[in-house]
């Protein structure tokens, strides 16, 4: 009987050990520093934020931001590859400590994750070939518009689109862009940089930005409950906004100047 009780206690301790490490810990920052490793999401099909360079190495403004953050924290960086729709689930399922993947700050998303102050901004535009007649949201009626799931455009474009707009969704930016290039859709919604980069890589298609739907700020996200980590990240964003590091990374990869970023 004593033996049995001893076993039960041991089992309970083991369970606590296994599951204890899974909870949203208030000491996330301590753990990261102790492990000397931080896990950050990398969405690598979303230029200029995340992309593979000529040597197949991850780069882009968000990846470089992650590198800088890990360096400043003094820990090793582990990039966790995600697709757009996996950015938030990766945090919630504890596969990543931070999401730095151009995650726009919205009230909807804030129900699931906690955002830092914004460290970047982007405009959502409608892009299409020159011969497609779109000047404003009203012209979207009767057209087939492609966009990527789990993006800001998925949230804002349907709100401005008039009835009769046929919106179709893809899982990857690359698929959405391919749909425009192969003529499967009339236009696509996306970040201004994405449309610009697409137009530059395919000059024969005459792709241009038709109109701006909205401008949004994106921040770094943590799993709800990780106060200490969020506090450190906010401090990091503040410091690197002041010293110009964020603006430098942004300009290097997007080719445009970073606009004034308000605090959250």
């Amino acid at each position, binding site marked *: 009987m004593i033996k049995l009780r001893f076993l039960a206690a041991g089992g309970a301790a083991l369970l606590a050990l296994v599951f204890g490490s899974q909870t949203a810990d208030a000491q996330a920052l301590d753990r990261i520093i102790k492990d000397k490793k931080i896990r950050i999401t990398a969405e690598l099909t979303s230029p200029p934020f995340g992309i593979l360079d000529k040597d197949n190495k991850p780069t882009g403004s968000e990846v470089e931001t992650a590198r800088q953050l890990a360096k400043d924290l003094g820990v090793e960086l582990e990039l966790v590859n995600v697709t757009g729709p996996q950015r938030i*689930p990766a945090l919630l399922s504890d596969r990543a400590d931070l999401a730095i993947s151009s995650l726009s700050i919205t009230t909807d998303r804030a129900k699931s994750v906690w955002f830092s102050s914004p460290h970047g901004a982007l405009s959502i535009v409608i892009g299409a070939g020159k011969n497609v007649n779109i000047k404003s949201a009203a012209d979207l009626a009767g057209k087939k518009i492609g966009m990527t799931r789990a993006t800001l455009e998925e949230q804002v474009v349907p709100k401005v689109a008039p009835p009769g707009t046929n919106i179709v969704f*893809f899982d990857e930016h690359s698929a959405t862009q391919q749909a425009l290039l192969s003529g499967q859709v009339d236009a696509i919604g996306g970040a201004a940089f994405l449309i610009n980069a697409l137009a530059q890589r395919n000059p024969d298609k005459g792709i241009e930005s038709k109109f701006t739907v909205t401008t949004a700020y994106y921040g770094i996200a943590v799993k709800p409950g990780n106060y200490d980590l969020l506090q450190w990240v906010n401090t990091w964003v503040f410091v690197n906004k002041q010293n110009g590091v964020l603006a430098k990374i942004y300009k290097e990869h997007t080719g445009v100047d970073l606009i004034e970023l308000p605090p959250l």
Partner: protein
Amino acid sequence: MTYVFQFGIVFDKFPLLLEGALLTIRLAAMAMVLGLIVAVSCAYLRTSGPKPVRALIAAYVEGIRNTPFLVQLYIIYFSLPALGIRFEANEAALVAMVISLGAYATEIVRAGVQSVPKGQIEVGLALGLKRLQIYRFIVLFPAIKAVFPALASQFILLLLGSSVVSAISANELTAIANTLQSTTFRAFEVYIVATLMYFAIAVAFRGFFAAVYWFMFVRGRER
């Protein structure tokens, strides 16, 4: 874990999921019928057709069975428009599924055809039946009976594999689940419900196949 499950959001959008499930069922059922027709024709040509046709069928079967379904799907949806052949997303999905299933099922039906004893075919020849008549009246029935379980498994695989076609914006069950997940961020809840729906559909199809088998091969043949 401190995760709090919220199934309410998913059930609010349940009609959408149901719509996606119906499209999944429609796509799978159509692909099964058309794929079986492709398979039965190709299996005949592969075993009794002229040499060049046999080689052509072999190339089709091996080409499809040794390349990823997703890539075939991308080629049909994204690449064919460059040649002037344009499919809507759902059509492209169906075409890809029929082509893929056709290749796998051809091999299965062929195995069945080759399992039919030579003597039976010789009886047909002795009776003066033509090749196609022998295939139709003597070979096909026992061939399908012999490989029916394998065919049914392949059909179920096709049904589950159809989840991939969300990649080209076909709006079947997985696509709806992905969209719900990305707008509600309740990944666990959405995918748990979608998984249960797939399971129910697969079980229903299995029951249907069992019934077909019974009606075609068991009932009235016990004497």
